[in-house]
């Protein structure tokens, strides 16, 4: 688990949207530019790190219950993406760090990856049973 204001400090992020949401916690992080992979593998209440700046990055985040998106490599999301993130209450940050370094820094500070969550990780139906308990 890691609070978003800690993520911001570790990655030296600019906060683009949701600066009132930085006390929220993420359970896990996922780094990907392919939204297909995000939809297939990301766990709920995650931090998404991506270099894809279009509106689909936020749509995908919303569907997958992502808490916040960090755009890497100094990229800034498109205006439509920021507007949608505000509507869906998803925090948006940007870091100058490349993907590998951003993920690495968060991981060394203790933010887990999806494969480390043991809750029927590859089977969303299994996960649904657990979260219903």
């Amino acid at each position, binding site marked *: 688990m890691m609070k978003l204001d800690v993520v911001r400090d570790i990655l030296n992020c600019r906060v683009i949207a949701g600066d009132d949401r930085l006390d929220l916690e993420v359970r896990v992080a996922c780094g990907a*530019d*392919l*939204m*297909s*992979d995000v*939809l*297939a593998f990301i766990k*709920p209440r995650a931090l998404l790190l991506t270099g*894809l700046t*279009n*509106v*689909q*990055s936020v*749509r*995908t985040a*919303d*569907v*997958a*219950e992502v808490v916040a998106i960090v755009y890497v490599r100094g990229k800034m999301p498109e205006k*439509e993406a920021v507007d949608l993130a505000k509507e869906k209450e998803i925090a948006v940050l940007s870091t100058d760090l490349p993907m590998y370094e951003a993920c690495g820094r968060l991981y060394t500070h203790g933010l887990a990856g999806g494969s480390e969550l043991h809750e029927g990780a590859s*089977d*969303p*139906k299994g*996960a*649904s049973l657990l*979260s*219903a308990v």
Partner: protein
Amino acid sequence: MKARAIPREPLFFQRSEIFGGDFVNAGKASSAVKAVLKEIGINPAVIRRVAIAAYEAEMNVVLYARKGIMDLRITPQHVRITVKDEGFGIPDIELAMQEGYSTASDEIREMGFGAGMGLPNIKKNADEFIITSVVGRGTTLEITVRL
């Protein structure tokens, strides 16, 4: 004891239109589905599965078809999403269901899609998944998640 009649009509029905190539609105039909399920208080884990499957199906229409419809039906037993498109159809469904198989163009991949995970991911999130396709006409997906 009288047998209880099983209702034929869903308790809730909603139809959304999807247009091929409309990337600005891509995902809105799935958002509308998610909003309804949230409003009636469905288990969040079920909502997430339905939303992911619906969004994958919606993106397939936007990326590959001319247009389509997404129907949401809710009964006391299940949530069912039906996506029917008018498009090229899928010649080999078994091949299309394999993880990593994709006919996506570079343009689609630049959008963050086309990794060949869509149909397998829909199946993974559904309790029942039926796909039918006629080449030259279109594809219909029926996705059921039990409540």
